[in-house]
């Protein structure tokens, strides 16, 4: 009876759950995911050539709704344009498709994209204005694609120089004509992608002090060693952060591009990152757990690990008998082999799910364990002492 009373007290004490995990696939990794505007649907790519759309059901759980079948090879990346409601997918078959929802049939219709690459596509992202998207590939070039209404397909312009290896990640600047690219040649670069064809009227900024034509390299950052797995501009576009395979997290401000703030972390390398506000971002990767970093004008500091499992608290309430039994079962140590993180494998993608007042209040992560987890920032703040976002 005492044990039961203690359990009730503990569960009552935790009012908000910090995260909601959902196992979308069993034994299949998720390479990428993207929500639509109202979070009612999510498009997910796993280790197959099929892309799956899940719809939010009655219980709040996402249920498989449709499967998009057009690709011939593993789909590596997906993105959903929230306002124009279009999905773009890219795969190892050197192709990308833009999917438009047919109003009358409710079916998703694929539209071919002429990438003109001779290697697999690795990453795709819609631009902020959703009139174009960028596709990174193993062909060591970036394809910026826009719609050609005459022929009813998407055409691409390439950015090739001086990228020397596979592109792993791309991020658009809020102005819609600047791109940050992270690649396997250990560099993070910012390019101009102003397109005459779409009547771009770029303005100068600290990232682009002189008006530059499409494909001009504006600035290049080196990470010493380590592929650049993830790159993101801050919400205002004034700062750029990237994570690399040497377990480092780097941030640079557009006002002082020679000073790169690097944190050489003690964790395994991160694969993706997301800015929660102008002065904090979350990085996640091979440690299966999102980590918070705080950014100030002259420093970048590791903030906290954002995964706290409730089950850990129950260990304090074990009776002496139960403790010895567990010791007997599992051997000398009490730690066992169970992971204490929500994700049990590498986190591959992290997306903002809800924002308010310019700050992200909810974000989602997907990983190689086939799980999709939605994290509540407010709940995390109250659960972890001293957390500032």
């Amino acid at each position, binding site marked *: 009876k005492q044990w039961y009373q203690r359990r009730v007290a503990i569960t009552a004490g935790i009012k908000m759950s910090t995260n909601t995990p959902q196992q979308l696939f069993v034994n299949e990794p998720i390479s990428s995911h993207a929500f639509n505007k109202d979070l009612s649907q999510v498009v997910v790519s796993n280790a197959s050539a099929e892309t799956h759309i899940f719809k939010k059901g009655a219980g709040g759980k996402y249920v498989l709704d449709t499967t998009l079948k057009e690709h011939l090879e593993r789909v590596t990346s997906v993105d959903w344009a929230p306002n124009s409601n279009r999905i773009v997918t890219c795969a190892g078959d050197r192709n990308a498709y833009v999917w438009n929802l047919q109003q009358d049939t409710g079916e998703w219709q694929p539209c071919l994209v002429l990438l003109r690459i001779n290697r697999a596509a690795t990453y795709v992202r819609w631009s902020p204005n959703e009139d174009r998207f960028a596709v990174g590939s193993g062909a060591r070039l970036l394809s910026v694609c826009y719609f050609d209404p005459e022929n009813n397909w998407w055409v691409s312009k390439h950015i090739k120089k001086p990228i020397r290896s596979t592109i792993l990640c791309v991020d658009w600047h809020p102005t819609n004509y600047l791109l940050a690219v992270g690649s396997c040649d250990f560099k993070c670069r910012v390019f101009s992608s102003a397109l005459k064809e779409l009547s771009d009227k770029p303005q100068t900024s600290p990232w682009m002090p002189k008006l530059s034509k499409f494909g001009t390299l504006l600035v290049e950052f080196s990470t010493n*060693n*380590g592929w650049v797995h993830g790159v993101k501009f801050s919400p205002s576009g004034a700062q750029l952060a990237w994570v690399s*395979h*040497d*377990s480092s997290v780097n941030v640079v401000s557009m006002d002082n591009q020679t000073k790169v703030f690097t944190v*050489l*972390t*003690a*964790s*395994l*390398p991160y694969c993706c990152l997301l800015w929660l506000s102008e002065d904090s971002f979350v990085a996640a990767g091979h440690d299966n757990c999102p980590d918070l970093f705080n950014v100030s004008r002259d420093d970048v500091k590791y903030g906290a690990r954002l995964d706290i499992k409730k089950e850990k608290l129950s260990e304090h309430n074990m009776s002496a008998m139960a403790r010895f039994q567990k010791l007997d079962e599992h051997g000398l140590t009490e730690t066992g082999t169970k992971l204490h993180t929500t994700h049990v494998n590498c986190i591959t993608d992290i997306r903002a799910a809800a924002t308010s007042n310019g700050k992200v209040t909810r974000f989602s992560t997907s990983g190689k364990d086939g799980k999709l987890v939605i994290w509540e920032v407010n709940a995390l703040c109250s659960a972890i002492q001293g957390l500032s976002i």
Partner: protein
Amino acid sequence: KQWYQRRLAITAGQEVTERAAEVKKLLNLTKNKDALKLALQNPPIGHQDPSVKEQNYETVLSVLKAFRTPEIDAAVGELSDADVDVLMKYLYKGFSNSPDKAAALLLWHEKAVKKGGVGCVIRVMVDRKGI
């Protein structure tokens, strides 16, 4: 530019030799912790002359051998993060050079991981220039 690089290489070589002598002096005075910190300064990373790298490696190894087991934890605790990264690189060089004598180095490895985490080990793995 070639001349400049050659000058840099020579000065790095001289620095390594001077450091070896300094470290030996500190070890004789049993100032082990200071010897460790000095030995880990400015390693000749990517130096074209392998004998310079070997000499620095021997210096570091001589310091590591001078410590008794209970002293290692405190010594590693006083190192800066950059120094721990350099120490880890030398430990892995030691593992590959003489795998059968790895026992002593493994004690150092455990303490270095306690301080620098697995990120420290990752940085040794992705390092493209040899130490």
